[in-house]
Protein backbone atom coordinates (compact mmCIF):
# COMPACT_ATOMS: atom_id res chain seq x y z
CA UNK A 1 0.00 0.00 0.00
CA UNK A 2 2.82 2.33 1.04
CA UNK A 3 4.73 1.40 -2.14
CA UNK A 4 1.70 2.17 -4.27
CA UNK A 5 1.23 5.54 -2.60
CA UNK A 6 4.86 6.46 -3.20
CA UNK A 7 4.60 5.34 -6.85
CA UNK A 8 1.43 7.34 -7.30
CA UNK A 9 3.09 10.40 -5.76
CA UNK A 10 6.10 10.04 -8.06
CA UNK A 11 3.82 9.63 -11.07
CA UNK A 12 1.93 12.79 -10.18
CA UNK A 13 5.23 14.63 -9.71
CA UNK A 14 6.51 13.39 -13.07
CA UNK A 15 3.31 14.40 -14.84
CA UNK A 16 3.42 17.79 -13.22
CA UNK A 17 7.02 18.25 -14.28
CA UNK A 18 6.31 17.21 -17.86
CA UNK A 19 3.25 19.40 -18.06
CA UNK A 20 5.17 22.40 -16.82
CA UNK A 21 8.11 21.74 -19.10
CA UNK A 22 5.84 21.21 -22.10
CA UNK A 23 4.03 24.42 -21.43
CA UNK A 24 7.27 26.40 -21.40
CA UNK A 25 9.25 24.92 -24.28
CA UNK A 26 9.05 21.94 -26.65
CA UNK A 27 10.59 18.60 -25.74
CA UNK A 28 13.04 18.72 -28.68
CA UNK A 29 14.70 21.81 -27.21
CA UNK A 30 17.83 21.48 -25.07
CA UNK A 31 17.60 22.07 -21.34
CA UNK A 32 17.97 25.74 -20.39
CA UNK A 33 21.17 26.89 -18.75
CA UNK A 34 19.33 28.42 -15.82
CA UNK A 35 16.33 27.17 -13.92
CA UNK A 36 12.92 28.18 -15.14
CA UNK A 37 11.35 27.61 -11.74
CA UNK A 38 10.31 31.21 -11.47
CA UNK A 39 8.37 33.11 -8.83
CA UNK A 40 5.16 34.74 -10.03
CA UNK A 41 5.50 37.69 -7.62
CA UNK A 42 9.04 38.40 -8.77
CA UNK A 43 7.91 38.14 -12.39
CA UNK A 44 5.10 40.63 -11.73
CA UNK A 45 7.53 43.05 -10.10
CA UNK A 46 10.09 42.60 -12.88
CA UNK A 47 7.45 43.30 -15.49
CA UNK A 48 6.55 46.62 -13.88
CA UNK A 49 10.21 47.57 -13.62
CA UNK A 50 10.92 46.59 -17.21
CA UNK A 51 8.31 49.01 -18.51
CA UNK A 52 8.95 51.82 -16.07
CA UNK A 53 11.23 54.74 -17.01
CA UNK A 54 11.87 55.22 -13.29
CA UNK A 55 15.08 53.24 -13.87
CA UNK A 56 16.63 56.06 -15.92
CA UNK A 57 18.20 59.26 -14.63
CA UNK A 58 15.36 61.55 -15.65
CA UNK A 59 12.60 58.92 -15.76
CA UNK A 60 12.35 59.18 -19.55
CA UNK A 61 13.76 55.87 -20.76
CA UNK A 62 12.64 52.38 -19.81
CA UNK A 63 13.99 48.97 -20.81
CA UNK A 64 11.04 48.82 -23.17
CA UNK A 65 12.18 51.96 -24.98
CA UNK A 66 14.69 49.78 -26.81
CA UNK A 67 13.02 46.41 -26.22
CA UNK A 68 9.42 46.69 -27.34
CA UNK A 69 7.34 43.49 -27.04
CA UNK A 70 5.82 44.17 -30.43
CA UNK A 71 9.16 43.89 -32.13
CA UNK A 72 10.17 40.75 -30.26
CA UNK A 73 11.78 42.87 -27.55
CA UNK A 74 14.11 44.91 -29.67
CA UNK A 75 13.54 48.21 -31.45
CA UNK A 76 12.81 48.32 -35.13
CA UNK A 77 13.32 50.69 -38.00
CA UNK A 78 16.38 52.47 -36.70
CA UNK A 79 19.84 51.05 -36.83
CA UNK A 80 21.28 52.03 -33.46
CA UNK A 81 19.66 52.26 -30.04
CA UNK A 82 18.34 55.58 -28.85
CA UNK A 83 19.09 56.57 -25.28
CA UNK A 84 18.61 59.34 -22.77
CA UNK A 85 18.76 62.98 -23.96
CA UNK A 86 18.21 61.82 -27.54
CA UNK A 87 21.63 60.21 -27.64
CA UNK A 88 22.31 57.49 -30.16
CA UNK A 89 24.14 54.36 -29.09
CA UNK A 90 26.72 52.39 -30.97
CA UNK A 91 24.84 49.12 -31.45
CA UNK A 92 21.50 47.71 -32.52
CA UNK A 93 19.54 46.54 -29.46
CA UNK A 94 19.48 42.72 -29.36
CA UNK A 95 16.11 40.98 -29.27
CA UNK A 96 15.20 39.49 -25.90
CA UNK A 97 13.85 35.96 -25.96
CA UNK A 98 14.96 32.48 -24.95
CA UNK A 99 17.48 34.08 -22.60
CA UNK A 100 17.53 31.02 -20.33
CA UNK A 101 19.46 29.19 -23.06
CA UNK A 102 22.23 31.79 -23.22
CA UNK A 103 25.36 32.11 -21.14
CA UNK A 104 26.72 35.45 -22.37
CA UNK A 105 24.77 38.60 -23.02
CA UNK A 106 25.17 41.68 -25.21
CA UNK A 107 26.77 41.59 -28.67
CA UNK A 108 30.26 41.21 -27.20
CA UNK A 109 29.27 38.92 -24.32
CA UNK A 110 30.32 41.40 -21.66
CA UNK A 111 27.78 40.06 -19.17
CA UNK A 112 27.93 36.48 -17.93
CA UNK A 113 24.53 36.48 -16.31
CA UNK A 114 21.22 38.10 -16.97
CA UNK A 115 21.39 40.04 -13.69
CA UNK A 116 24.79 41.40 -14.63
CA UNK A 117 23.44 42.29 -18.05
CA UNK A 118 20.59 44.26 -16.48
CA UNK A 119 23.02 46.69 -14.87
CA UNK A 120 24.63 47.61 -18.22
CA UNK A 121 21.88 49.70 -19.86
CA UNK A 122 20.68 51.12 -16.54
CA UNK A 123 24.09 52.59 -15.73
CA UNK A 124 25.28 53.32 -19.27
CA UNK A 125 25.46 57.14 -19.69
CA UNK A 126 24.11 57.03 -23.24
CA UNK A 127 21.32 54.57 -22.50
CA UNK A 128 19.52 55.18 -19.18
CA UNK A 129 22.29 56.91 -17.22
CA UNK A 130 20.86 55.66 -13.95
CA UNK A 131 22.39 55.80 -10.51
CA UNK A 132 21.49 52.77 -8.46
CA UNK A 133 21.23 54.61 -5.12
CA UNK A 134 18.99 57.23 -6.70
CA UNK A 135 16.82 54.57 -8.33
CA UNK A 136 16.43 52.70 -5.04
CA UNK A 137 15.45 55.95 -3.31
CA UNK A 138 12.85 56.66 -6.01
CA UNK A 139 11.44 53.14 -5.69
CA UNK A 140 11.25 53.41 -1.90
CA UNK A 141 9.14 56.53 -2.24
CA UNK A 142 6.57 54.60 -4.28
CA UNK A 143 3.74 52.86 -2.39
CA UNK A 144 3.20 50.70 -5.43
CA UNK A 145 6.77 49.42 -5.52
CA UNK A 146 6.99 49.01 -1.74
CA UNK A 147 4.03 46.67 -2.00
CA UNK A 148 5.37 44.77 -5.02
CA UNK A 149 8.84 44.31 -3.51
CA UNK A 150 7.34 43.19 -0.20
CA UNK A 151 5.21 40.60 -1.99
CA UNK A 152 8.17 39.32 -3.98
CA UNK A 153 10.91 39.43 -1.34
CA UNK A 154 9.15 40.02 1.98
CA UNK A 155 9.76 43.08 4.15
CA UNK A 156 12.32 45.84 3.67
CA UNK A 157 13.21 44.39 0.33
CA UNK A 158 13.95 47.27 -2.02
CA UNK A 159 17.58 46.93 -2.92
CA UNK A 160 19.75 46.54 -6.01
CA UNK A 161 20.03 42.75 -5.84
CA UNK A 162 16.28 42.31 -5.67
CA UNK A 163 15.71 44.82 -8.43
CA UNK A 164 18.06 42.96 -10.77
CA UNK A 165 16.65 39.58 -9.78
CA UNK A 166 13.08 40.66 -10.50
CA UNK A 167 14.06 42.08 -13.88
CA UNK A 168 15.78 38.81 -14.70
CA UNK A 169 12.82 36.68 -13.65
CA UNK A 170 10.52 38.61 -15.97
CA UNK A 171 12.94 38.35 -18.87
CA UNK A 172 13.33 34.61 -18.36
CA UNK A 173 9.62 34.25 -19.08
CA UNK A 174 10.20 35.60 -22.59
CA UNK A 175 10.22 32.24 -24.33
CA UNK A 176 9.50 32.17 -28.03
CA UNK A 177 8.59 28.64 -29.06
CA UNK A 178 5.38 28.88 -31.02
CA UNK A 179 6.36 29.72 -34.58
CA UNK A 180 5.14 27.80 -37.62
CA UNK A 181 8.48 25.95 -37.52
CA UNK A 182 7.65 24.78 -33.99
CA UNK A 183 4.18 23.74 -35.11
CA UNK A 184 5.72 21.71 -37.92
CA UNK A 185 8.21 20.09 -35.57
CA UNK A 186 5.35 19.18 -33.24
CA UNK A 187 3.46 17.61 -36.15
CA UNK A 188 0.68 20.19 -35.94
CA UNK A 189 1.38 21.96 -39.25
CA UNK A 190 3.22 21.43 -42.52
CA UNK A 191 5.61 23.59 -44.50
CA UNK A 192 4.45 24.57 -47.96
CA UNK A 193 6.65 23.63 -50.90
CA UNK A 194 8.65 26.84 -50.85
CA UNK A 195 9.22 26.72 -47.09
CA UNK A 196 10.24 23.06 -47.28
CA UNK A 197 12.84 23.80 -49.95
CA UNK A 198 14.03 26.77 -47.91
CA UNK A 199 14.40 24.53 -44.88
CA UNK A 200 16.64 22.17 -46.86
CA UNK A 201 18.81 25.13 -47.93
CA UNK A 202 18.91 26.37 -44.36
CA UNK A 203 20.09 23.01 -43.03
CA UNK A 204 23.03 22.85 -45.44
CA UNK A 205 24.04 26.52 -45.54
CA UNK A 206 23.07 28.24 -42.29
CA UNK A 207 22.57 25.68 -39.56
CA UNK A 208 26.19 25.49 -38.41
CA UNK A 209 26.00 28.94 -36.78
CA UNK A 210 22.23 29.41 -36.51
CA UNK A 211 21.66 25.94 -35.13
CA UNK A 212 18.17 24.52 -34.62
CA UNK A 213 16.01 24.66 -32.61
CA UNK A 214 17.15 27.92 -31.01
CA UNK A 215 18.57 29.07 -34.34
CA UNK A 216 21.84 30.16 -32.82
CA UNK A 217 24.76 28.54 -31.09
CA UNK A 218 25.04 31.83 -29.16
CA UNK A 219 28.79 31.63 -29.77
CA UNK A 220 30.82 34.56 -31.13
CA UNK A 221 31.81 34.87 -34.78
CA UNK A 222 33.08 37.28 -37.39
CA UNK A 223 30.54 37.13 -40.21
CA UNK A 224 32.60 39.27 -42.56
CA UNK A 225 30.86 42.61 -42.20
CA UNK A 226 33.13 45.38 -43.49
CA UNK A 227 34.08 47.57 -40.51
CA UNK A 228 32.07 50.74 -40.08
CA UNK A 229 34.79 53.36 -39.79
CA UNK A 230 32.50 55.77 -37.95
CA UNK A 231 31.62 53.29 -35.22
CA UNK A 232 34.97 51.47 -35.21
CA UNK A 233 33.40 48.59 -33.29
CA UNK A 234 35.84 45.73 -32.79
CA UNK A 235 33.29 43.53 -31.05
CA UNK A 236 34.49 41.05 -28.46
CA UNK A 237 38.08 42.29 -28.85
CA UNK A 238 37.12 45.43 -26.92
CA UNK A 239 36.42 43.19 -23.95
CA UNK A 240 39.16 40.56 -24.15
CA UNK A 241 41.89 42.53 -26.01
CA UNK A 242 42.69 39.25 -27.71
CA UNK A 243 43.36 39.80 -31.45
CA UNK A 244 41.59 36.51 -32.17
CA UNK A 245 38.38 38.19 -30.99
CA UNK A 246 38.55 41.08 -33.45
CA UNK A 247 35.17 41.69 -35.09
CA UNK A 248 33.58 38.78 -33.26
CA UNK A 249 29.98 39.36 -32.25
CA UNK A 250 27.43 37.10 -30.64
CA UNK A 251 25.50 35.09 -33.20
CA UNK A 252 21.86 36.19 -32.97
CA UNK A 253 18.94 33.81 -33.20
CA UNK A 254 17.04 33.81 -36.48
CA UNK A 255 13.73 33.45 -34.68
CA UNK A 256 11.32 36.36 -35.14
CA UNK A 257 13.28 37.98 -37.98
CA UNK A 258 10.01 39.37 -39.28
CA UNK A 259 9.87 41.65 -36.25
CA UNK A 260 13.51 42.42 -35.53
CA UNK A 261 14.74 44.40 -38.52
CA UNK A 262 17.14 46.09 -39.07
CA UNK A 263 19.73 43.35 -38.85
CA UNK A 264 23.32 42.93 -37.62
CA UNK A 265 25.02 44.44 -34.56
CA UNK A 266 24.93 47.90 -36.13
CA UNK A 267 21.57 47.55 -37.86
CA UNK A 268 23.05 48.19 -41.27
CA UNK A 269 20.67 45.94 -43.23
CA UNK A 270 16.96 46.63 -43.37
CA UNK A 271 15.85 43.54 -45.29
CA UNK A 272 16.64 39.85 -45.31
CA UNK A 273 17.62 40.10 -48.97
CA UNK A 274 20.29 42.66 -48.07
CA UNK A 275 21.60 40.16 -45.52
CA UNK A 276 21.74 37.44 -48.18
CA UNK A 277 23.48 39.87 -50.53
CA UNK A 278 26.12 40.38 -47.86
CA UNK A 279 26.79 36.65 -47.50
CA UNK A 280 26.92 36.22 -51.27
CA UNK A 281 28.81 39.31 -52.41
CA UNK A 282 29.90 41.44 -49.48
CA UNK A 283 32.09 39.41 -47.14
CA UNK A 284 35.22 41.22 -45.98
CA UNK A 285 38.09 38.82 -45.52
CA UNK A 286 40.17 38.95 -42.34
CA UNK A 287 42.10 36.55 -40.16
CA UNK A 288 39.17 36.14 -37.78
CA UNK A 289 36.50 35.51 -40.43
CA UNK A 290 34.37 32.47 -39.61
CA UNK A 291 35.87 29.60 -41.70
CA UNK A 292 32.44 28.54 -42.98
CA UNK A 293 32.10 31.92 -44.68
CA UNK A 294 35.40 31.95 -46.55
CA UNK A 295 33.65 31.10 -49.82
CA UNK A 296 30.49 33.05 -49.06
CA UNK A 297 27.00 31.64 -49.33
CA UNK A 298 25.99 31.48 -52.97
CA UNK A 299 22.32 31.05 -53.72
CA UNK A 300 20.28 31.29 -56.89
CA UNK A 301 17.41 33.73 -57.07
CA UNK A 302 14.91 30.93 -56.41
CA UNK A 303 16.94 29.60 -53.49
CA UNK A 304 17.02 33.07 -51.91
CA UNK A 305 13.25 33.31 -52.11
CA UNK A 306 12.84 29.82 -50.67
CA UNK A 307 15.26 30.50 -47.84
CA UNK A 308 13.47 33.71 -46.88
CA UNK A 309 10.14 31.86 -47.00
CA UNK A 310 11.53 29.37 -44.49
CA UNK A 311 13.06 32.05 -42.29
CA UNK A 312 9.67 33.72 -42.00
CA UNK A 313 8.25 30.49 -40.55
CA UNK A 314 10.33 31.33 -37.48
CA UNK A 315 8.03 34.26 -36.69
CA UNK A 316 6.19 33.75 -33.43
CA UNK A 317 3.21 36.09 -33.46
CA UNK A 318 1.76 34.59 -30.30
CA UNK A 319 4.97 35.53 -28.50
CA UNK A 320 5.01 39.06 -29.84
CA UNK A 321 1.42 39.78 -28.86
CA UNK A 322 1.28 37.69 -25.66
CA UNK A 323 -0.69 39.76 -23.12
CA UNK A 324 1.50 38.56 -20.23
CA UNK A 325 4.47 40.21 -21.93
CA UNK A 326 2.86 43.56 -22.57
CA UNK A 327 3.06 46.64 -20.38
CA UNK A 328 1.27 46.02 -17.08
CA UNK A 329 -1.55 48.21 -15.88
CA UNK A 330 -1.55 49.53 -12.34
Amino acid at each position, binding site marked *: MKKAAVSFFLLVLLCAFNLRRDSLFPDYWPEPRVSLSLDSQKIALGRFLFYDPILSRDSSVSCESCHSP*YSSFTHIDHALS*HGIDNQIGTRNAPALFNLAWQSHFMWDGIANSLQEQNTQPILNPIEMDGDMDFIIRKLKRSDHYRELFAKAFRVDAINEAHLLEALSEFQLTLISANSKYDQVMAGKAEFNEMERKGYEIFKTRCNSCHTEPLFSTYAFANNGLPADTALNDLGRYSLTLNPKDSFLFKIPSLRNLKYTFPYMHDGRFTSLYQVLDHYQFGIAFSTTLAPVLKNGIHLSSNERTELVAFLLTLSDEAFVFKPEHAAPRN
Partner: protein
Amino acid sequence: MSKAWKWLLISMLCFSWQAQPTIYKTELKVIPYLGGEPLSLKSVQANQSLHLTTFKLYISNVLLFKKFDKELAPIAAPQLLDLSEKNILEYEDENMHLDYPDSLELILGVDSQTISNQMFFLKGDLDPIKGMYWTWHTGYVHLKMEGQYKQKKFELHLGGYQGPYSSVQSLHFAMDKNKHRYELRLHLDALFQQFPDDPFIMSPGRESARLMQLLAENAELYSE
Protein backbone atom coordinates in the same frame (compact mmCIF):
# COMPACT_ATOMS: atom_id res chain seq x y z
CA MET B 1 -47.67 47.44 -74.94
CA SER B 2 -49.35 50.52 -76.21
CA LYS B 3 -47.42 53.68 -76.98
CA ALA B 4 -49.08 55.54 -74.07
CA TRP B 5 -47.97 52.89 -71.57
CA LYS B 6 -44.44 53.07 -72.85
CA TRP B 7 -44.34 56.83 -72.39
CA LEU B 8 -45.80 56.50 -68.93
CA LEU B 9 -43.14 53.97 -67.95
CA ILE B 10 -40.34 56.14 -69.32
CA SER B 11 -41.71 59.18 -67.52
CA MET B 12 -41.87 57.31 -64.22
CA LEU B 13 -38.31 56.12 -64.60
CA CYS B 14 -37.13 59.66 -65.30
CA PHE B 15 -39.04 60.97 -62.33
CA SER B 16 -37.63 58.35 -59.95
CA TRP B 17 -34.12 59.03 -61.25
CA GLN B 18 -34.54 62.77 -60.69
CA ALA B 19 -35.97 62.17 -57.23
CA GLN B 20 -32.81 60.37 -56.06
CA PRO B 21 -30.74 62.81 -54.01
CA THR B 22 -27.25 63.15 -55.40
CA ILE B 23 -24.74 62.27 -52.71
CA TYR B 24 -21.21 63.07 -53.63
CA LYS B 25 -18.37 61.18 -52.09
CA THR B 26 -15.96 63.57 -50.45
CA GLU B 27 -12.45 62.89 -51.63
CA LEU B 28 -9.51 63.90 -49.50
CA LYS B 29 -5.87 63.61 -50.40
CA VAL B 30 -3.08 64.34 -47.94
CA ILE B 31 0.07 65.54 -49.64
CA PRO B 32 3.24 66.91 -48.05
CA TYR B 33 4.77 69.84 -49.95
CA LEU B 34 8.21 71.37 -50.04
CA GLY B 35 9.13 74.40 -52.13
CA GLY B 36 5.66 74.42 -53.64
CA GLU B 37 6.03 70.89 -55.00
CA PRO B 38 4.61 67.61 -53.73
CA LEU B 39 7.23 65.87 -51.65
CA SER B 40 8.70 62.53 -52.64
CA LEU B 41 11.92 60.87 -51.60
CA LYS B 42 13.13 60.97 -55.23
CA SER B 43 12.38 64.62 -55.86
CA VAL B 44 14.02 65.70 -52.65
CA GLN B 45 17.19 63.87 -53.53
CA ALA B 46 17.61 66.31 -56.41
CA ASN B 47 17.75 69.12 -53.86
CA GLN B 48 21.39 69.29 -52.82
CA SER B 49 20.79 70.69 -49.37
CA LEU B 50 18.27 67.99 -48.43
CA HIS B 51 18.54 64.26 -48.85
CA LEU B 52 15.47 62.68 -47.32
CA THR B 53 15.60 58.94 -46.71
CA THR B 54 12.52 58.50 -44.52
CA PHE B 55 9.25 60.33 -44.26
CA LYS B 56 6.41 58.70 -42.34
CA LEU B 57 3.42 60.57 -40.96
CA TYR B 58 0.27 59.39 -39.22
CA ILE B 59 -3.09 60.93 -39.98
CA SER B 60 -5.89 59.84 -37.66
CA ASN B 61 -9.38 60.74 -36.44
CA VAL B 62 -10.48 62.05 -39.82
CA LEU B 63 -14.02 63.35 -39.25
CA LEU B 64 -16.49 65.13 -41.47
CA PHE B 65 -19.11 67.37 -39.88
CA LYS B 66 -22.27 68.98 -41.15
CA LYS B 67 -24.63 71.54 -39.63
CA PHE B 68 -23.55 72.74 -36.22
CA ASP B 69 -21.02 70.06 -35.41
CA LYS B 70 -23.32 67.15 -35.98
CA GLU B 71 -20.98 64.32 -36.76
CA LEU B 72 -21.86 62.53 -39.96
CA ALA B 73 -19.04 60.13 -40.63
CA PRO B 74 -17.55 57.32 -38.61
CA ILE B 75 -13.90 57.67 -37.77
CA ALA B 76 -11.63 56.34 -40.49
CA ALA B 77 -8.82 54.05 -39.38
CA PRO B 78 -5.49 55.82 -38.80
CA GLN B 79 -3.35 55.86 -41.90
CA LEU B 80 0.39 56.07 -42.31
CA LEU B 81 1.78 58.12 -45.16
CA ASP B 82 5.11 56.45 -45.88
CA LEU B 83 6.87 58.12 -48.79
CA SER B 84 8.83 54.98 -49.52
CA GLU B 85 5.53 53.38 -50.52
CA LYS B 86 3.20 56.19 -51.63
CA ASN B 87 3.29 59.96 -51.97
CA ILE B 88 -0.35 60.66 -51.21
CA LEU B 89 -2.87 59.46 -48.65
CA GLU B 90 -6.32 59.12 -50.12
CA TYR B 91 -9.61 58.93 -48.28
CA GLU B 92 -12.41 57.84 -50.49
CA ASP B 93 -13.98 54.88 -48.74
CA GLU B 94 -17.42 54.75 -47.17
CA ASN B 95 -16.28 56.97 -44.33
CA MET B 96 -16.18 59.89 -46.75
CA HIS B 97 -19.52 59.16 -48.42
CA LEU B 98 -21.27 62.32 -47.31
CA ASP B 99 -23.40 64.99 -48.81
CA TYR B 100 -21.32 68.17 -48.81
CA PRO B 101 -20.08 68.33 -45.24
CA ASP B 102 -19.39 71.71 -43.62
CA SER B 103 -16.10 70.97 -41.95
CA LEU B 104 -13.24 68.58 -41.65
CA GLU B 105 -11.28 67.61 -38.58
CA LEU B 106 -8.26 65.39 -38.32
CA ILE B 107 -5.22 64.74 -36.21
CA LEU B 108 -1.61 64.85 -37.29
CA GLY B 109 -0.29 61.89 -35.33
CA VAL B 110 -2.02 59.37 -33.12
CA ASP B 111 -3.64 60.44 -29.86
CA SER B 112 -4.28 58.41 -26.71
CA GLN B 113 -7.94 57.88 -27.59
CA THR B 114 -7.01 56.17 -30.84
CA ILE B 115 -4.47 54.01 -29.04
CA SER B 116 -7.07 52.91 -26.53
CA ASN B 117 -9.50 52.04 -29.33
CA GLN B 118 -9.21 48.28 -29.71
CA MET B 119 -10.48 48.52 -33.30
CA PHE B 120 -7.27 50.25 -34.30
CA PHE B 121 -4.51 49.58 -31.74
CA LEU B 122 -1.73 47.38 -33.13
CA LYS B 123 -3.76 46.74 -36.28
CA GLY B 124 -3.55 47.99 -39.87
CA ASP B 125 -1.23 50.95 -40.12
CA LEU B 126 -0.79 50.92 -36.34
CA ASP B 127 0.89 47.51 -36.56
CA PRO B 128 4.20 47.98 -34.71
CA ILE B 129 5.96 46.34 -37.62
CA LYS B 130 5.59 49.69 -39.40
CA GLY B 131 8.35 50.90 -37.10
CA MET B 132 6.36 53.74 -35.55
CA TYR B 133 5.30 52.24 -32.22
CA TRP B 134 7.22 53.93 -29.48
CA THR B 135 6.58 53.05 -25.90
CA TRP B 136 3.60 52.28 -23.78
CA HIS B 137 3.38 55.74 -22.24
CA THR B 138 4.16 57.83 -25.29
CA GLY B 139 2.36 55.87 -27.98
CA TYR B 140 3.42 56.22 -31.57
CA VAL B 141 5.89 58.41 -33.36
CA HIS B 142 3.66 60.89 -35.21
CA LEU B 143 6.19 62.01 -37.78
CA LYS B 144 9.48 60.35 -38.61
CA MET B 145 11.86 62.18 -40.92
CA GLU B 146 15.43 61.08 -41.51
CA GLY B 147 18.16 62.03 -43.91
CA GLN B 148 20.76 64.73 -44.41
CA TYR B 149 20.13 68.46 -44.35
CA LYS B 150 22.83 70.98 -45.16
CA GLN B 151 25.32 68.10 -45.10
CA LYS B 152 24.36 67.10 -41.57
CA LYS B 153 22.59 63.86 -40.73
CA PHE B 154 19.25 64.27 -38.98
CA GLU B 155 16.71 61.97 -37.34
CA LEU B 156 13.50 63.59 -36.23
CA HIS B 157 11.14 61.21 -34.42
CA LEU B 158 8.36 63.52 -33.32
CA GLY B 159 5.72 62.12 -31.02
CA GLY B 160 4.23 61.83 -27.57
CA TYR B 161 0.73 62.59 -26.42
CA GLN B 162 1.28 63.34 -22.75
CA GLY B 163 1.70 66.82 -21.27
CA PRO B 164 3.48 69.13 -21.00
CA TYR B 165 4.92 68.40 -24.45
CA SER B 166 2.09 66.73 -26.27
CA SER B 167 2.83 66.96 -29.95
CA VAL B 168 -0.54 65.71 -31.18
CA GLN B 169 -1.97 68.37 -33.50
CA SER B 170 -5.69 68.72 -34.22
CA LEU B 171 -6.66 70.46 -37.42
CA HIS B 172 -10.07 71.93 -38.21
CA PHE B 173 -11.06 73.31 -41.61
CA ALA B 174 -14.25 74.80 -42.99
CA MET B 175 -15.32 73.16 -46.24
CA ASP B 176 -16.78 74.68 -49.37
CA LYS B 177 -20.36 73.56 -49.95
CA ASN B 178 -19.87 73.45 -53.67
CA LYS B 179 -16.78 71.27 -53.65
CA HIS B 180 -16.17 67.65 -52.85
CA ARG B 181 -12.57 67.11 -53.86
CA TYR B 182 -10.00 68.31 -51.35
CA GLU B 183 -6.28 68.24 -50.80
CA LEU B 184 -4.71 68.71 -47.41
CA ARG B 185 -1.37 70.28 -48.23
CA LEU B 186 1.24 70.01 -45.51
CA HIS B 187 3.91 72.59 -46.24
CA LEU B 188 7.27 71.61 -44.76
CA ASP B 189 9.18 74.77 -45.72
CA ALA B 190 8.78 76.45 -42.33
CA LEU B 191 9.95 73.33 -40.56
CA PHE B 192 13.19 73.30 -42.52
CA GLN B 193 13.60 77.08 -42.17
CA GLN B 194 13.35 76.72 -38.40
CA PHE B 195 15.30 73.49 -38.21
CA PRO B 196 16.31 72.38 -34.69
CA ASP B 197 19.86 73.01 -33.53
CA ASP B 198 20.04 69.40 -32.33
CA PRO B 199 18.98 67.38 -35.37
CA PHE B 200 18.41 64.20 -33.34
CA ILE B 201 15.04 64.14 -31.63
CA MET B 202 14.10 60.75 -30.28
CA SER B 203 11.71 61.47 -27.45
CA PRO B 204 8.80 63.75 -26.56
CA GLY B 205 9.86 67.24 -25.58
CA ARG B 206 9.69 70.95 -26.32
CA GLU B 207 11.30 70.66 -29.75
CA SER B 208 9.14 67.77 -30.80
CA ALA B 209 6.01 69.74 -29.88
CA ARG B 210 7.33 72.89 -31.60
CA LEU B 211 8.04 71.15 -34.90
CA MET B 212 4.69 69.37 -34.97
CA GLN B 213 3.01 72.70 -34.28
CA LEU B 214 4.90 74.24 -37.21
CA LEU B 215 3.64 71.46 -39.44
CA ALA B 216 0.06 72.04 -38.27
CA GLU B 217 0.26 75.82 -38.70
CA ASN B 218 1.35 75.38 -42.29
CA ALA B 219 -1.37 72.97 -43.28
CA GLU B 220 -3.77 74.18 -45.95
CA LEU B 221 -7.02 72.67 -47.18
CA TYR B 222 -7.24 73.16 -50.90
CA SER B 223 -10.37 72.40 -52.86
CA GLU B 224 -10.75 71.80 -56.56
